[in-house]
């Protein structure tokens, strides 16, 4: 544990041998293609499949929406076809004749909230009516008294934009029926949940469904069930009586597989003359598309003793949001952290000192004060200049910081360990590896328990034939599966001890497993090799099931980030020069893959700050950039030096396994934005930090206004 173990599936992935869902080619397999609404809002008048059905190679066709049903966004599925080649399936899809009655649409939060706006929902659909849904109002303390205590008040509107998940492997599956039994290879974050989703959607017993996900090309919170494309694929396969592959193309992926909702907040916040936060009053809103919420925590982390926050979800004619890597937190973090730097300037305090002064009381899952102090020292924060780089020339340099938190932790799960008489060990777990290194974690924990090298363990995951585990979301996988594996492997080892003990003339409780041997505690010479011990097992392998128990995992992580940027105030281009994070995650299972997760989260958040933006045309409601050229993502030259301080102090190690997939992706964007503010002296209160927006903000400041 906590060492650097190389990724188990590394060789399979670097050679191309790893078979992802997209790579599954079954005998006789044909290709499915979905026909989608080109309109952001329309009523389906008719769906005519006849010409498509007569097209060369077509084996199946179906209408997904009935006449009269509405398409609520561009890309809403309407019909589907399957043909013997992918090219012919695409041809046939173009021959499906759908007539639409176009309806008025709303493509932005402002349009949707206008008094005379067309309605996304005319009737109550999915609990939503009209274009808005007011949430609860959170309130604490005495707001009026809080503002009276304030020496300074900042009142501004802050916002973050919509981005999409851009999983490199698009959503999709291969469905194959054998009589009434379905086998589905699905690119999913939850094999067992997806199995249940197929059973419910197809109205068949769950025991008739097997879902397999050996490898998957990214999910980030967007892949939790069969979705429409899964059910469509299964029905096409049923109709054609052949296996069908249906993988979405890049445009469909942008339009219909989720996104991170936008976030807006009009905030009024007060601070006392000595730098204590006194009051926070916010109206917030955001859109998760057609019918999904846009929740986010606000204020984030820092303690406002008197506060009120009212939130409204706004619906627009766009694909629904889905959880995206630390859902809600990057938004709440940005809205709060930009405000914090503004407040710090009002009281002329250093941003780090100001933050430390307003943190909640310390706890094992709230170590920001320690991390700010340690990371600031390592980063060289003392070299920060006050807001606005005074040096002449167009390149301005700035420092920024921010803090974040995340839950993680275990949610239950099962595991099975087999030890055979040839010494081989197989750990089976119905979890899945999103690229986080789950397969490696399974092996490392089994190996640690049995005193073996990790490469001697065969981890088997990604199949509903294995014991039930939850979906991989909320950074819960490691903390959910490792306790079950630890317990199963421990029980299996106890059984092995009871076989070996008589041979060694001791009782089982006197034995331990270490470095590939079973020996008497305190007497390494008195023992036998793992292989010799396993020879005593007999023909029936040792076979143990176990379930997650509390005590080996915890929930709650904290972390801070620092960035340094260069901003060219003539071009508006931001270049991030370096990023430093101090991050805890309890007990580190594999230091190598844990660091990779942190790098990945930080780069994801850099994308959120500087590059990504789902652009909907305000007039047509069409996505302008449903590709990977104009939907921008960082490349190698955009990625700065990143330094990681994993805070695995004795206190953190004692907490057990927590999970690290999401926390690091929360606050980089905020730290970058604060560094841009520190460099330019201009506060940009919304993302993304695209060059034209930075130039506009600089111009507006010169003109005496703000963005």
């Amino acid at each position, binding site marked *: 544990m906590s060492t650097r173990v*190389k*990724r188990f*599936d*590394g*060789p399979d*992935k*670097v*050679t*191309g*041998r*790893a*078979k*992802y869902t*997209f*790579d599954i*080619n079954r005998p006789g397999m044909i290709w499915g293609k979905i026909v989608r609404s080109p309109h952001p809002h329309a009523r389906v008048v008719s769906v005519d499949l006849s010409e498509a059905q007569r097209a060369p190679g077509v084996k199946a066709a179906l209408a997904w929406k009935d006449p009269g049903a509405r398409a609520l966004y561009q890309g809403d599925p309407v019909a589907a076809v399957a043909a013997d*080649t*992918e*090219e012919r399936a695409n041809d046939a899809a173009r021959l499906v004749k759908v007539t639409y009655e176009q309806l008025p649409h709303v493509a932005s939060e402002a349009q949707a909230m206008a008094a005379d706006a067309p309605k996304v929902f005319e009737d109550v659909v999915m609990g939503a009516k009209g274009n808005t849904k007011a949430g609860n109002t959170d309130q604490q303390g005495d707001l009026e008294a809080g503002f009276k205590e304030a020496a300074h008040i900042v009142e501004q509107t802050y916002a973050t934009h919509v981005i999409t998940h*851009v*999983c*490199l*492997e*698009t959503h999709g599956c291969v469905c194959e029926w054998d009589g009434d039994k379905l086998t589905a290879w699905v690119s999913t974050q939850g094999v067992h949940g997806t199995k249940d989703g197929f059973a419910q959607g197809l109205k068949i017993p769950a025991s008739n469904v097997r879902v397999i996900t050996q*490898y*998957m*090309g*990214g999910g*980030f919170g967007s892949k939790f069930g069969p979705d429409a494309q899964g059910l469509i694929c299964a029905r096409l396969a049923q109709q054609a009586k052949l296996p069908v592959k249906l993988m979405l*193309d*890049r445009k469909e992926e942008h339009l219909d597989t989720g996104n991170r909702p936008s976030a807006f907040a009009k905030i009024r916040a007060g601070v006392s003359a000595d730098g204590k936060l006194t009051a926070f009053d916010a109206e917030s809103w955001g859109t998760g598309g057609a019918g999904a919420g846009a929740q986010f925590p606000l204020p984030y982390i820092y303690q406002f003793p008197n506060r009120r926050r009212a939130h409204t979800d706004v619906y627009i004619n766009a694909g629904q949001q889905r959880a995206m890597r630390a859902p809600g937190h990057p938004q709440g973090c940005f809205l709060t952290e930009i405000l914090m730097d503004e407040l710090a300037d009002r009281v002329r305090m250093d941003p780090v000192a100001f933050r430390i002064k307003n943190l909640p009381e310390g706890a094992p899952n709230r170590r920001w004060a320690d991390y700010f102090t340690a990371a600031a020292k390592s980063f060289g924060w003392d070299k920060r200049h006050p807001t606005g780089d005074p040096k002449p020339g167009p390149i301005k340099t700035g420092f920024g910081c921010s803090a974040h938190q995340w839950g993680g932790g275990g949610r239950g799960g099962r595991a099975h360990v087999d030890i055979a008489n040839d010494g081989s060990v197989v750990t089976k777990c119905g979890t899945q590896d*999103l*690229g*986080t*290194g789950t397969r490696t974690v399974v092996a490392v924990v089994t190996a640690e328990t049995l005193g073996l090298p990790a490469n001697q363990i065969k981890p088997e995951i990604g199949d509903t034939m294995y014991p039930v585990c939850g979906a991989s979301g909320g950074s819960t996988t490691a903390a959910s599966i490792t306790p079950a594996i630890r317990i199963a492997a421990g029980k299996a080892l106890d059984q092995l001890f009871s076989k070996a003990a008589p041979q060694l003339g001791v009782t089982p409780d006197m034995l331990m497993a270490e470095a590939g041997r079973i020996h008497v505690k305190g007497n390494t010479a008195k023992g036998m090799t793992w292989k010799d011990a396993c020879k005593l097992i007999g023909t029936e392998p040792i076979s143990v099931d176990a379930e997650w128990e509390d005590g080996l995992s915890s929930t709650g992580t904290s972390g801070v980030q620092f960035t340094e940027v260069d901003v060219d105030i003539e071009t508006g281009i931001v270049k991030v020069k370096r990023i430093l994070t101090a991050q805890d995650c309890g007990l580190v299972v594999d230091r*190598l*893959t844990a*660091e*990779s*997760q942190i*790098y*990945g*989260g*930080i*780069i*994801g958040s850099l994308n959120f700050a500087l590059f990504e933006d789902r652009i909907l045309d305000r007039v047509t409601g069409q996505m302008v950039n449903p*590709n*990977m*050229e104009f939907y*921008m*993502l*960082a*490349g*190698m*030259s*955009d*990625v700065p030096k*990143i330094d990681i301080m994993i805070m695995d102090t004795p206190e953190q190690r004692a907490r057990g396994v927590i999970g690290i997939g999401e926390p690091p992706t929360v606050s980089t964007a905020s730290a970058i934005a604060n560094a841009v503010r520190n460099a330019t002296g201009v506060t940009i209160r919304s993302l993304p930090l695209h060059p034209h927006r930075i130039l506009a903000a600089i111009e507006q400041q010169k003109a005496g206004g703000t963005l």
Partner: protein
Amino acid sequence: MAHKNDPDKPERVNVSRRSFLKTAGVSSLAATVASVTEAPLAEAQAGPAVVGPGEVPVQLMVNGKRLDLRIEPRVTLLNALRNRADLTGNKRVCDRGQCGACTMIIDGRTAYSCSTLAIEVQGKQIRTVDGLSDGATLHPVQQAFYDHDSLMCGFCTPGFIMATVALVEKHPNATAEQVRKGLDGNICRCGTFTRIFEAATSLKGVARG
């Protein structure tokens, strides 16, 4: 987000007017559609045989082995190998030459195989990630990616590996700047850039493949 075309070696379009007519239809997907209707006219005037639109024999040299396929002329190299030859190592991600996951090496140069027609690269030496390792022995670039944990979900990895192979074959001691520029045509979503950079800059003196 940079183009992967090597400025040192501009792509030569060395065709006569006659052969231009013959290949115009395969230079891009959009143009292929046009060629279906225009080709007969071109043939009447200039004489070349019409290819397609149905399946035609296409012979490819992939990883040193000959592949005989029957595919429509519009089929991309990537789809031909993935869908017809079960060579699924290289991935389809953007399908528009923007992300690099499909990067193959054709006659020594990197190419986006999603934006290359199979019929266009007959007679050329095509290398994919599937043919890179020698049995159980990883290619030095694959080994470096494995050692440095330069992959997470792994979907961009085959393209990055092929781009790195091409880079180190050209610059056996690539500088940090050459690594950045050489790999700028590839996109990773999990955020493995830091680790890929470590792997690529660790490679010194890798032999030509």
